[in-house]
């Protein structure tokens, strides 16, 4: 079954989704989604990649029946999210990274069992399933520990396990590995892949800040910004959008110690990477069109008193695609974000 299979009922089918919010300050409205079309086939791991405020969480909220769209339609597992909300809820799981679920006074096992009851899972099924999820989340030793005695990472792993207690058809994972340690994040990514592969027709919609997580996990990725889907394809397909030329990363230092001014490198789309305060340098990432020579760009930089400290060229990454489509890197999209582009435990 593929996304283009016209006979299959899509796991997620969103058409022309719009959502506006009243602005909290200054009146007016904020458009969080601006005509989003997404079609996800059963069995897919689908990634949603975008900077903060791009509309990812708003889209997930609509698809999980927590929010009405202002316009457009959405169906999940074949059911309309507005008119058949309860049918949708029976078939979905939701995990938001960084959230806390459960009550501190309950143990991990009790908490997962409690949530299984909200989905009506019979006791003979709930017990073994909860035990299995506890093992998967690496919480066997903490199974009978109170939640208020878990570390933050352990709580997040428990929260991840909670999203699967109902064995849903479609799981929405909103930044599921946010802040997790390397090994835990890797184990959970492996579980996501195994869960989908071992259960035909199960679907995952994943949002992440970690480019490599999306690359590693997702069959297809939609890049979203300002409430619009800019591109949606497999990683290979997305790479083709920006292929041609070289991807170059320079580490540069301006003569005055500040950020070099680069108003126009003709034919070159630039994006500033993270600064290296300890070295006083900054990364400059760009794709060089086939008709431009790198030497020419370097000369141009030298004329602007910019010293080149290091040069690297490489294959197109998802980050390159993102930069090309969005016009900035993920780490630049929100100054408040602490998370770098590499996921914990990324290979």
């Amino acid at each position, binding site marked *: 079954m593929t996304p283009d299979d016209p006979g299959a009922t899509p796991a997620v089918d969103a058409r022309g989704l719009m959502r506006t919010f009243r602005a909290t300050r200054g009146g007016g409205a904020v458009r969080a989604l601006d005509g989003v079309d997404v079609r996800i086939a059963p069995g897919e791991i689908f990634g949603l990649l975008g900077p903060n405020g791009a509309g990812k969480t708003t889209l997930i909220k609509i698809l999980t029946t*927590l929010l009405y769209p202002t316009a457009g339609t959405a169906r999940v597992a074949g059911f309309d999210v507005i008119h058949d909300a309860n049918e949708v809820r029976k078939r979905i799981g939701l995990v938001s990274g960084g959230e806390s679920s459960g009550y501190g006074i*309950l143990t991990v096992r009790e908490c997962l069992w409690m949530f*299984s009851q*909200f989905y009506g899972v019979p006791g003979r099924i709930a017990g073994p399933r909860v035990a299995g999820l506890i093992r998967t989340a690496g919480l066997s030793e903490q199974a009978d520990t109170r939640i208020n005695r878990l570390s933050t990472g352990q709580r997040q792993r428990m929260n991840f396990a909670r999203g699967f207690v109902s064995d849903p058809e479609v799981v929405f994972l909103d930044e599921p590995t946010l802040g997790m340690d390397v090994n835990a994040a890797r184990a959970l990514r492996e579980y996501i892949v195994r869960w989908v592969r071992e259960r035909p027709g199960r679907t995952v919609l994943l949002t992440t800040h970690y480019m490599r997580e999306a690359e590693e996990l997702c069959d297809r990725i939609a890049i979203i910004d300002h409430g619009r889907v800019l591109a949606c394809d497999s990683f290979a397909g997305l790479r083709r959008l920006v292929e041609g030329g070289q991807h170059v990363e320079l580490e540069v230092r301006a003569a005055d110690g500040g950020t070099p001014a680069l108003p126009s490198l003709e034919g070159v789309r630039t994006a500033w990477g993270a600064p290296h305060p300890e070295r006083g340098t900054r990364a400059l990432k760009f794709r060089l069109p086939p008709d431009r020579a790198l030497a020419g760009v370097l000369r141009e930089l030298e004329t602007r008193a910019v010293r080149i400290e290091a040069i690297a060229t490489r294959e197109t990454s998802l980050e390159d695609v993102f930069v090309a489509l969005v016009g900035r890197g993920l780490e630049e999209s929100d100054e408040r974000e602490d998370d770098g582009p590499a996921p914990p435990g990324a290979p």
Partner: protein
Amino acid sequence: MSALALELRATWGRAYGRLVGAFREPTWLITDAILPNLGMVAFVMLYRALGAPRSFEALAVVGGLLATYWINVLWGMGAQFYWEKQSGQLQLYFVAPCSRMAILSGMALGGFLLTTVRSAFGLFLGFVVVGARVEPFSLPALLGVFALTMVALYALGMVMASLFLLWGREAYHLSNALYQPVQFLSGLYFPLRTLGPLGIVAAGLVPLGLGVDALRQVLLGAGAHALLPLRAEVALLAALGAAFLWLARVALAHLESLAKREGRLTQRWQ
């Protein structure tokens, strides 16, 4: 799986958390059982010192026991959704296929059972340690009136859960401010009849006073100095219970619709 099975499992699942908690935090025994009962003991001592009829002592004990449930309704029901929102958990209830009424019913059932365990301490204190006495009474009548009172009280708690969530901290402060007046207007430690017309008005709004008065009538007969005939109080309690359950359902539906339309309520920062 039938819809009823789902609702029952959800109710029991939520109630279970509260019951388990009852045996894990002994400090709650102090705040929820011992402290409220100190007021009750003080009134019993006062009546005894003044040479009031013995029925007044039992009257205060019944009021003290009901106060324990009132505290649970106020903070364990009314404030719960607000706290769930603050902890980011509320959206998990909204995304589950069970009804929010099932979740609230679970909270109510768990809270009621938990409080009953704790109110046993009040019973022991009032009737064994302090030595309050009651008249011979009908156990079915007592259980019936008690059940009606609990349904009305916890249904009010369900309504308050939605209102707390809608009004946020305002409701929290309002509830704090109303705690003592409600206790007073419910005549927890004196006959409700003493308040005259004010008592009747209060009894029509909060089932606590009606429940206390009806239970006293079952236990003390004429010594209860009742506000209304028992049958009338029972009918009013039943009506209040039904009305609050209906209101709770309406309030939750409104709340959910509001949450979906405005995109707030389920997020702790909104």
